[in-house]
């Protein structure tokens, strides 16, 4: 099988290239269109080039209070990211031993991933409504609501990010060599020292990957937020609201700004992972390279 590439390679390479074009083509179209001139419309051809529509978003004269929604989404995204990383790493460590309720947690995570988002969202909203009713009936008649960005909203997002975090931890520890920890223990390290100085540095690139998933999934989350976020909107919810009413390119401008944040976070995370991997390769241990 050494006589060059088979014909199927070229057929599939073209197929793959077409798929990538299909993935990126439409998105690139709206990034370009968000730089329409002030007179420009929703479609090509471009009517001049300007940053008019993007500037308009930040002036707050547009249709939504972009600044407030932006800050809310960012705050929620960062909190979701931190909680996802901490809880996933902790639970991932727990799964390396047998423990009771192991399969309950595993199946909860899988179910949370595949039960349609609208059902989870509806359930959370019912739960909080019932809690509100109880508080109003028994403690405080003037109580408004316990639903909100950092209560029901945070919970809704976590049901989406934690399963991904847990599955990534499984993948990490499938490849992890437990002899490294044994060595640390034999040298007298406490469990915390073993974790802090041996386990964590090795899994750090993947942990940053979990953070990346946590933030981006929350930043773009829509279906689960829809019923559970309470009175305020996140940025994707505002954007979705605009799809039915807007006839100007500001919707593309908003799309471009949201994507810019996504791409910044993605490149930061991937860059950090790359640097950490290179450092590990350069300065890492010689474990497994001989001297049994």
């Amino acid at each position, binding site marked *: 099988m050494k006589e060059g590439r088979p014909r199927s390679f070229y057929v*599939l*390479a073209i*197929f*793959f290239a077409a798929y*990538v074009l299909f*993935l990126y083509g*439409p*998105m690139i*179209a*709206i990034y370009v269109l968000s730089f329409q001139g002030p007179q420009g419309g*929703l*479609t*090509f051809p471009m009517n001049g080039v300007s940053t008019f529509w993007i500037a308009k978003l930040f002036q707050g004269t547009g249709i939504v209070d972009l600044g407030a929604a932006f800050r809310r989404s960012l705050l929620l995204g960062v909190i979701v990211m931190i909680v996802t990383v*901490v*809880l*996933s790493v*902790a639970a991932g*460590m*727990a799964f390396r*031993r047998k*423990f*009771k309720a192991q399969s309950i*947690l595993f199946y*909860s*995570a899988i*179910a*949370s991933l*595949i*039960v*349609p*988002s*609208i*059902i*989870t969202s*509806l*359930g959370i909203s019912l*739960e909080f*409504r*019932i809690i509100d*009713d109880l508080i109003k009936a028994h403690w405080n008649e003037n109580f408004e609501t316990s639903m909100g960005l950092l209560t029901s909203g945070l*919970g809704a997002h976590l*049901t989406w990010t934690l399963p991904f975090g*847990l*599955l990534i931890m499984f993948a990490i520890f499938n490849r992890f060599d437990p002899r490294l920890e044994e060595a640390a223990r034999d040298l*007298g390290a*406490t469990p915390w020292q073993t974790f802090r100085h041996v386990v964590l540095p090795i899994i750090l690139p993947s942990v940053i990957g979990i953070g990346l998933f946590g933030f*981006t999934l929350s930043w*773009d989350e*829509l*279906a689960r937020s829809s019923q559970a976020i309470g009175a305020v909107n996140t940025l994707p919810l505002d*954007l*979705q609201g605009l*799809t039915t009413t807007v006839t100007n390119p500001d*919707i*593309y401008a908003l*799309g471009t700004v*949201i*994507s810019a944040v*996504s791409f910044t976070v*993605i490149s930061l995370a991937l860059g950090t992972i790359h640097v950490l991997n290179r450092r590990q390769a350069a300065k890492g241990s010689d474990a497994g390279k001989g001297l049994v």
Partner: protein
Amino acid sequence: MDMSEEVLQQASPGLIPGSGTARAAKPTRLSPSFISWLQAGPMMLVFLAFFLIPLVFVVIVSFWDYNEYQLLPAFSGRGYTDTFEGCIAQLPDLCTIGKTYLMTLKLCFLVWALTLFIGFWVAYFLAFHVKSKTWQMGLSLLCTIPFWTSNVIRMIAWIPLLGRNGLVNSGLVKTGLIHQPLEWLLFSEFSVVLALVHLFTFFMVVPIFNSMVRIDKSLIEAAYDAGATGFQTLVNVVIPLAKPGIVIGSIFVITIVMGDFITIGVMGGQQIAAAGKIIETRVNALQFPAAAANAVILLAITFLIITMMSRIVDIKKEL
């Protein structure tokens, strides 16, 4: 604190000011099972509070009564009877809920078939034809990046292409293939399927690719040496070994489309009825028990599909 400090701390605790107070107390040995609870407990609590209990509430509320503006906590089957209204009277015609589920299943099937076809060949190309690990990583990343960006943006991205004055229509008119712009390109079943395939093929590619890279390449060479044609190798070696990935990807795509209401709403111009959309409509009308009843029905059907599919493969073994 660096290593030397750590060692110092071990030797004589209290020497480094300000540190160690948290762990100064003689550490009592915790039992391994207690540590496991401590580690896994927080995540379990989140799932309990925001997933399992809410599901229970959905089931309970689906049996409550309601009027125009509030929930009435009294047993009633009204959520369900309202949902199936006219289903018997209109026979042999389908009632609204029947038509809606038929439409949902149709969309589901189309999207599943298309994502499976595209996902399979993309994964096949990455797993078998891209030999260098670096290229494999790079190209996989290329497929993953859109997954980290907003779904709504990836939906509205089709508007400038498919709209009445969009690129596709103006291109076709210019070349003389059509005289009137095509109306069915946007806000139609076509655009819904297109957008769903665009958004969710990723969920097919990843598990199928994972199954394929685990296939021992010598098996394929053995098939080749034994005289199998490329097609025979594909059907008898690659597809059976990639089956777990195919099933997991299918479960993902099917459950997403079954419950979808956003893509169907935005790309269907809010005109197409689907299972997830009914729930949203009922919630907006504050008819929570009816919404919950619909959620229970959707959950039951989704669960049925997953059970049928997971008969084929043990999900837990494949992770």
